[in-house]
């Protein structure tokens, strides 16, 4: 019987990987999408950097003429990417009007205007004002990057001024220490282990991937499984297949195994695309990344993450094993359900629609789980959580982290029971006659039409 199962699996895999729709939609598009996105983000970042490096044309409108405005001018003109024209304003001329007029002329990217009395206010420690006009020439990231240069300049100027005051007030003290009297070294303690807070924050912020990863894999698996049975119906091959000297359940198993193989290939392809995307975005040179801050990219070599061994240590080997087994169980459960449910359909489109309707609502509680702590739920909530289908991978990682391991074992057992039940019922479904006649009955009752619209 194992020989016949192998023959069936081989047939299923061959049929799936030769289907242009599956190759395109399940394997090529997801990976290419990330690669193209990475290239687009990288291109935008490079353009931004190029724009900045071309230089920021700045007009410095000086209505003050004191030492404080001189200092601001010298800091502005010493910035490597700035070309600064100093414009003195005559008595009686309005600084703001002159600055606006220069900004409107289109000759400058940036206009910094210092009103009369600025130095006097600074010297007397009274509130002083600097006017800044950023000329916006577009809505792109690159167009918005130039004006951001001024933020750095003014921060640097402020620091310079404060240090000057501190030197005068405390000539025997280091103004840097006075400005930053202490450094915060923050660590998070998880299960008695100290971890850099930054690393933990990153782990938390990336926890959505724990939801998104399995979601992508499961949706891909469900769709391929549905296509596999949909093709049998569409091409009218199922009746012949079930009349061959094989057990009906072997047809179910072979489809599940072949779909799993193709889904894993699809997921690897997707992961490859995602890796290329991340490398493309993260590998921007440090100076470009910092200048192109609007992209939100972290400079390459950012040391805030956790290594795999640290994650393993943090969660515990048992948790990781349960999570991995949970992923496998979830996939098998989705596959078996999708195959059985989509066997009610008459073609690939109907099959994929049916499979989608079945498993998608089950993900809603998982989505909610991302925002909840297990320990904040009462006994009833925890019991419900323990029975959620497909939840083992996410639940294992959360339960392992929160120190409530029983819930992940309970969920693993529940999902194992679900899988065995679906396997048993699915085998009976494929052994019985309803797999050939159910659609007729379902259509007669308007069930298929109600779910997937028209179609035959």
């Amino acid at each position, binding site marked *: 019987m194992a*020989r*016949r199962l192998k*023959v*069936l699996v081989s*047939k299923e895999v*061959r*049929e799936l990987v*030769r*289907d242009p729709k599956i190759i395109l939609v399940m394997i090529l598009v997801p990976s290419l999408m990330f690669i193209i996105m990475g290239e687009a983000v990288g291109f935008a970042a490079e353009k931004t950097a190029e724009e900045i490096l071309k230089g920021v044309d700045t007009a410095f409108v000086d209505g003050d003429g004191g030492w404080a405005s001189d200092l601001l001018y010298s800091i502005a003109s010493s910035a490597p990417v700035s070309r600064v024209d100093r414009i003195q304003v005559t008595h009686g001329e309005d600084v703001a009007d002159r600055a606006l007029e220069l900004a409107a002329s289109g000759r400058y990217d940036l206009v910094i205007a210092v009103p009369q009395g600025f130095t006097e206010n600074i010297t007397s420690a009274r509130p002083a004002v600097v006017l800044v006009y950023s000329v916006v020439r577009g809505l792109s990231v690159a167009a918005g990057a130039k004006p951001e240069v001024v933020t750095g300049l003014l921060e640097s100027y402020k620091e310079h001024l404060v240090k000057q005051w501190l030197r005068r007030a405390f000539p025997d003290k280091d103004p840097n220490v006075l400005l930053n009297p202490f450094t915060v070294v923050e660590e998070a303690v998880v299960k008695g282990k100290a971890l850099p807070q930054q690393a933990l924050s990153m782990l938390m912020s990336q926890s959505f991937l724990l939801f998104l990863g399995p979601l992508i894999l499961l949706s891909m698996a469900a769709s391929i499984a549905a296509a596999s049975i949909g*093709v049998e119906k569409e*091409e*009218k*091959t199922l*009746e*012949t297949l*079930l*009349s*061959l*000297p*094989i*057990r009906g359940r072997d047809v179910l198993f072979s489809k599940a195994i072949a779909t799993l193989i193709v889904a894993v290939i699809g997921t690897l392809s997707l992961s490859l695309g995602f890796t290329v995307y991340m490398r493309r975005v993260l590998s921007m040179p440090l100076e470009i990344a910092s200048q192109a801050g609007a992209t939100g990219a972290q400079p390459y070599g950012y040391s805030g993450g956790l290594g795999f061994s640290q994650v393993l240590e943090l969660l515990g080997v048992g948790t990781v094993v349960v999570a991995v087994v949970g992923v496998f169980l979830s996939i098998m459960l989705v596959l078996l359900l999708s195959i059985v449910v989509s066997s009610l359909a008459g073609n690939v489109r109907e099959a994929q629609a049916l499979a989608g309707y079945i498993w998608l609502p089950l993900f809603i509680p998982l989505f909610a789980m991302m925002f909840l702590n297990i320990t904040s739920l009462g006994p009833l909530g925890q019991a419900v959580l323990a029975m959620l289908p497909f939840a083992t991978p996410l639940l294992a990682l959360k339960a392992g982290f929160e120190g409530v391991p029983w819930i992940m074992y309970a969920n693993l057992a529940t999902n194992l029971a679900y899988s065995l039940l679906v396997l048993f019922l699915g085998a009976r479904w494929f052994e*019985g*006659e309803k797999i*050939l*006649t159910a659609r007729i*009955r379902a259509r007669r009752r308007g069930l298929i039409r109600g779910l997937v619209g028209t179609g035959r």
Partner: protein
Amino acid sequence: MSKDRLLSVERLVKIYGDKPAVRGISFSVDEGEIFALIGPNGAGKTTTMRIIATLLKPTSGRVLVDGHDVVSEPLEVRRRISYLPEEAGAYPNMTGREYLEFVAQVYFEDPGEARAAVERGIEYAALGDAIDERVKTYSKGMKRRLQLARALMTRPRLLLLDEPTSGVDVVHAVHLRRVVKRVAREEGSTVLLSSHNMLEVEYLSDRVAFIHEGRILVEGTPGEVKKRYGAGNLEEAFVRALEEQGLSLGGSG
């Protein structure tokens, strides 16, 4: 008659929900015999075929293939049969040869036997170089030839052919009928055939049964049936058989 009985259908009943499709039919087919079920759409031919092919369970009655019960020993029955449904397709992304190889590997454990079956299938299909092209490029007639070749190549004890030349043009239909007759005679396969085409039935069959609204009206050799109703051909005999029973030709699909 010294031949062994290969197929035995006894008081077979099949009801879908509250709609009877087969109402207690009985017939038997001897080894090496070609037996045809003749009737309009909805007469119960396909349901009977599907029950014999182990795809449907009878509501009551019994069906034995080579002594094996279709309900309690479905796998034993499937090893002995080859079923060609009326609407049978092949996997669109496989070549014709790959499809035959797949089916042969399911039937035969020995690679040599499987190879020999594939060679026979290629000969029966007579698709020429197209056998190595993907099925999705085939015309309806080519697909039917491939399917018939698939059904014949395994040398089944019982061949179930539901409308074997349905949708096939005249030239290819003649080819298919010749192949069926030759293989049945040479290999000694027993054939249960259903068809609307009376010429086809008369050409191929040793015995026929008229079936209407789930009941068998008459059974015998084509000559006996025609003689009984004083008809020149089977079509005329079928109409007269209905009239004799007070029935009309208003069967539903």
